[in-house]
């Protein structure tokens, strides 16, 4: 199976470098060999059939304890990413939105986000935001994203609908302003307005230099994001690399046909 190691954007400012990453989950080897480079400000789309390793890649880069790296390297902003604790990765500027964001009963959303934001700000050498200033920014961002303001005062994701959970992830992304965001099916569960909000937020943050790895199955969103590259994952490897045309081809033929074509 082919593997692709060329940088996604031919730019000296490579933000993320992944080389031959291999990951086990339990007894199963999920990522067999992943290599990719992502430059600052670039946008890469990851596509692939269910179980191909897209979410595993994101959670591994984020440092989830269930995902065991058995080989390979990953550098982020000049640091050995795999040697860092999850919070250190986040403070270095890596944001991973979760496909199914969990609830945290009893912890108010605004307190949670403000605590996270101040931890990241401290790492950047910025002064912490007080509750008043934070709430102003949070309300503004929530309004832009279509997240009801009342959800700021509720426990994190507790009783939120699927779409509200995704909007809440977007709110955190908007406020944290990371260097690299990996969005894992952020559009699933979102309505049309939510999809537009994703595109707008991504464009705004890219203009400020944030790079993105976007996992999505939906061509409309992918085309709206105008990706620099589209990668197809298959059985834990990068099987194809292309541009938006690859996404269109995959949407037309499906993943099974793409796999057969490569193997044939």
């Amino acid at each position, binding site marked *: 199976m082919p593997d692709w190691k060329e940088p996604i954007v031919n730019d000296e400012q490579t933000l993320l470098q992944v080389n031959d990453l291999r990951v086990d989950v339990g007894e199963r080897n999920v990522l067999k060999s992943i290599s990719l480079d992502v430059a600052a400000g670039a946008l890469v789309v990851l596509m692939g059939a269910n179980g191909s390793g897209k979410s595993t890649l994101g959670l591994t880069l*984020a*440092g*989830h*304890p*269930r995902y065991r790296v058995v080989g390979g390297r990953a550098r982020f902003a000049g640091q050995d990413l795999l040697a860092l*604790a*999850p*919070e250190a*990765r*986040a*403070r270095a500027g890596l*944001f*991973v939105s*979760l496909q199914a*964001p*969990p*609830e*945290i*009963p*009893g*912890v108010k959303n605004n*307190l*949670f*986000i403000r*605590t*996270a*934001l101040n*931890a*990241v700000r401290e*790492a950047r050498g910025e002064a912490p935001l007080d509750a008043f200033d934070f709430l102003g920014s949070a309300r503004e961002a929530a309004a832009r994203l279509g997240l009801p303001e009342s959800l700021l005062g509720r*426990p*994190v994701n507790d009783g939120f609908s699927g779409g509200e959970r995704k909007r809440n992830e977007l709110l*955190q992304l908007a406020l*944290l302003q990371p260097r690299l965001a990996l969005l894992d099916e952020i559009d699933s569960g979102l309505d049309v307005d939510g999809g537009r909000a994703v595109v707008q937020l991504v464009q705004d943050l890219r203009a400020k230099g944030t790079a993105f790895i976007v996992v999505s199955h939906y061509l409309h969103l992918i085309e709206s994001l105008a990706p620099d590259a589209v990668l197809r994952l298959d059985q834990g490897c990068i099987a194809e690399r292309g541009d938006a045309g690859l996404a269109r081809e995959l949407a037309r033929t499906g993943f099974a046909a793409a796999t057969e074509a490569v193997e044939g």
Partner: protein
Amino acid sequence: MDSARADALAARSHLATQGWISRQCESFRHLPPPVAEVWLGDEAGPQGRGCEAHPLAGAGWTLHPVGSTPQGRVDARWLDAGDAVQRAELLVDLPAPGQGDAAPFAWAHRALCRHGLRLRIGGAPGAQRIPGETVWLQLRHQPRTAVEAPLLVIDVQAGVQCVLVETHEREPLHCQRGIVQNLQVHLRLGVGATLTHLRLAMPGAGDRLAHHVHARLGRGARYDQALIAAGSGYHLQRNVIALEAERSAARTASVLFAAGSALEQQLQVAHAAARTTSAVEALVLASGAARAVVNAHSRIAPGAEDAAVRQRLSGIPTGGQPRLVLRPHLEIHHDRVQAAHGATWGALPEDALFLARQRGLDERTARGLIVEGMATAVLQRCLDGPGLLQPLAVDALLARAVAGHLAAAQETGHE
């Protein structure tokens, strides 16, 4: 000899005859209490001497109105149990210690009780009462002596709504030694009365405490108790709630911290009438070599039609190798009732912990936030939302308690 002293001696004699709680006693076998001599002040050693608080030191019960509770709504009587007349007034209408599992504590209390407080809430004449008005009170207790048996009796009159914050504070300035405290609290709620009772008991590491709360509810009365308690040398929190009249209801929610210490909560609810409801919830955080026990027992008597019972006990080990025992019991003697109970014992939710860390919180902060959230959620379920927690500054207190517990747990883990 006056009758007060005779009564105390009779109680001591009864205790000597009946004996202390057996180590095989079902209610206490997981965490047997210290022997009778401890609770009677007869323990050998320096305990009990030189620890008397100055009369003006604020020791004993002090009562503080909260907000704008009008004068005259609360009748408070501080009574000296060493005086025959006052003792009679203090103990009038209270049940005798009886023969139950915890009766030896009650007999020891009778033998040692020196002071007590009786509160009648809603004491204004009927014509002056404002329907729906809530009486807010704060009751603080500081130990008077190193070994003591304080008493608190509260009558909430029919139709009265009351919010009571009861704190047990430990001011170690006058006595560096561990204290022994055998507290008996008797609550009586009249027809349609409500009492929202927030209790805080955070003893010193060497203290030995036993708090017994007995609540009797009239028709349509409601009792909600939220407890925050920490372990110590020995710490028992025991609730005995009697739902004796139709449509009476009780809820208890407890957040218990045991970091290398001993802590037991016993929750007994007796449904004796139709359409009574109760909900018991406890969250225990235990670390190090802690021994933590929650014993919940709810009984539905024959004829208690449409009674509803719920028990939910949770334990989370936060470090070390604590011994954590959760025992939900139901005893049902009527067919048409609703009952649910369960106990869970496990780690903090991994996904929530990861989400917090992925957003930049260090592990300690993330754990603290999640534990605090879980504790807040338990209390809010009992108190119908955050409305009461904020004005009473419970969130700040809980944050301190969680931080203290996790810090102690971490120290234990490093040992």
